[in-house]
């Protein structure tokens, strides 16, 4: 005890050579503080990983935007748009039929400003020869639901483009901070956590085939469809903001030497009005853009699409059969009108695409198996 006191005294006077000097103490304190901050940051990061939705058993399309970064690069065609894109055109079929490399950047109810920034983001990784934009989202002049913003934006990699995309998309009660720190948005999920939240904390499943989302089941278009509701006055003309972003999309593509092709997918619901069609036709004519409306009788016939077999939800989205038919027709169109090359002779690319074909066939088989066993496809992975 007496010795202890003497040591303490020596410590106080700093005479013990074994005792650290003030500089070292400060350094140690700084290191400890840094370690504490690191522990806190790591804990919060882990917690954030745990709490953010994993999009495995529901809202699976939430995986799409992030998945792009795994197949970015070397794509001749980039599709942008909503479910009318990612459900309706088989990228793998475009490869197997024509050797066209294509990718999609689509998410549910993806609005035109989302699509525009998806193109900008894509240009950070590759410059496609063709950008295909599905025009349905021209009807939305403002964001409809915050949840769709999250599905489109959460998966984007951080860059100035993402920051701009968030700014352009946020609803009045959203904050940039909740995109920087998603835990601020998803913290209340703590009481709803499931096993999949742990299982897929760091690694997730692959949903798409270069952006295409497969469904093999069939639900025909019924003989009777809802009457098209009349358009309100403010729904007839597309909003100025939509034209502004279409202009931006067009000029961006022009500046990069990319051919912009506008399409309207052949979905029967929601209704595509003649008033909307006229505006897109006029715009395409004015700027010399290709516009393909798959709902037009001649195009529909040429694709061979059959609404009794080629849709899984009564005409709102195509199933695999429909998506392959559209890919076959549109692939030929792009080959002939955009001069796209057949890359199947490129061994490296062919090997890369073979692994995509393998996964495509695997998912297809799993879904058919589930369809046979359960009479329905309730998981994209067939599990």
């Amino acid at each position: 005890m007496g010795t202890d006191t003497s040591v303490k005294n020596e410590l106080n006077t700093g005479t013990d050579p074994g005792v650290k000097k003030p500089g070292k103490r400060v350094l140690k304190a700084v290191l400890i503080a840094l370690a504490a901050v690191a522990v806190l940051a790591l804990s919060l990061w882990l917690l954030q990983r745990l709490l953010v939705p994993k999009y495995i058993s529901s809202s699976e399309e939430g995986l799409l935007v992030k998945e792009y970064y795994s197949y970015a690069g070397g794509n001749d065609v980039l599709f942008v748009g909503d479910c009318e894109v990612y459900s309706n055109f088989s990228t793998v079929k475009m490869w197997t039929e024509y050797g066209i490399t294509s990718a999609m950047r689509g998410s549910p109810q993806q609005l035109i400003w989302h699509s525009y920034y998806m193109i900008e983001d894509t240009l950070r990784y590759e410059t496609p020869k063709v950008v295909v934009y599905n025009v349905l989202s021209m009807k939305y002049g403002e964001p409809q639901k915050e949840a769709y913003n999250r599905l489109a934006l959460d998966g984007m990699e951080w860059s100035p483009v993402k920051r701009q995309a968030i700014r352009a998309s946020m609803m009045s009660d959203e904050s940039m901070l909740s995109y920087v720190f998603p835990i601020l948005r998803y913290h209340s999920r703590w009481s709803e956590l499931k096993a999949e939240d742990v299982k897929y904390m760091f690694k997730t499943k692959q949903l798409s085939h270069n952006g295409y989302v497969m469904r093999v089941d069939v639900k025909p278009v019924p003989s009777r469809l809802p009457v098209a509701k009349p358009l309100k006055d403010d729904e007839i003309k597309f909003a100025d903001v939509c034209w502004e972003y279409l202009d931006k999309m067009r000029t961006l593509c022009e500046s990069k030497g990319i051919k912009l092709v506008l399409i309207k997918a052949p979905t029967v619901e929601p209704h595509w009005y003649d008033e909307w069609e006229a505006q897109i036709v006029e715009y395409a004519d004015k700027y010399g853009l290709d516009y393909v409306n798959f709902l037009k009788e001649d195009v529909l016939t040429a694709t061979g699409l059959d609404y009794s077999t080629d849709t899984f939800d009564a005409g709102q989205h195509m199933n695999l059969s429909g998506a392959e038919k559209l890919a076959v027709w549109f692939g030929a169109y792009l080959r002939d009108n955009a001069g796209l090359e057949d890359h199947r002779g490129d061994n490296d690319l062919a090997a890369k695409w073979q692994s995509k074909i393998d996964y495509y066939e695997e998912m297809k088989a799993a879904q058919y198996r589930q369809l046979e066993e359960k009479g329905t496809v309730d998981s994209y992975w067939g599990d």
Partner: protein
Amino acid sequence: MKTLKTDIENKTNARIFKRLIAAALACVLVLSLLAGCAKKPDEPAENTTGKPVEKTTAAPVKVETFTFKKGSAEVVIGAEAAAILTALGPQDEEPYESESCALEGLEITYFYPGFDLYTYKASANATEYITGATFWDDTMETGEGLYIGAPAAKVAELYNVTIGDSSNISIKKGDCELLVVLENDAVKMITYNYPAELIVGG
């Protein structure tokens, strides 16, 4: 001395350990606060499946709205659908169902003679609400007596509105909108709209 020095180091290590514990506790505190926030009614709604779902504002309450009749059944726009659907009886054809892309929420169109009826449910097990209707022939009449083919002047008379240049006339009652489309000075189409975003699933 070595022993004493080790003792000092142990104490220092104990301090470090305490600080780390304090940091961890701070984490827990932050999380507790965050968890506490979850109970605030203005936070984004989420469901048990982990989906981000639409934000909702308020449940439909008994407010002013439009109604119309089909036989003895009264259709109240914005009301719960079950009793109304029962009163309307069997439909001509299977309803057309439209799921929200990626999110929960189901829009259903029921087909009845003379009109389509729209409903919405926020999830599979949620309560179904009437969100609108479209008349497509002159066998149907609004609660106020407007029908397809009626002269434009009848709209002005029944709803006390001015007929301007627009072919669409929007008439509001509470949160419900009645949209009347005119063509050649006559009513061409009649639609009721009740905003689905005002509906909270039960």
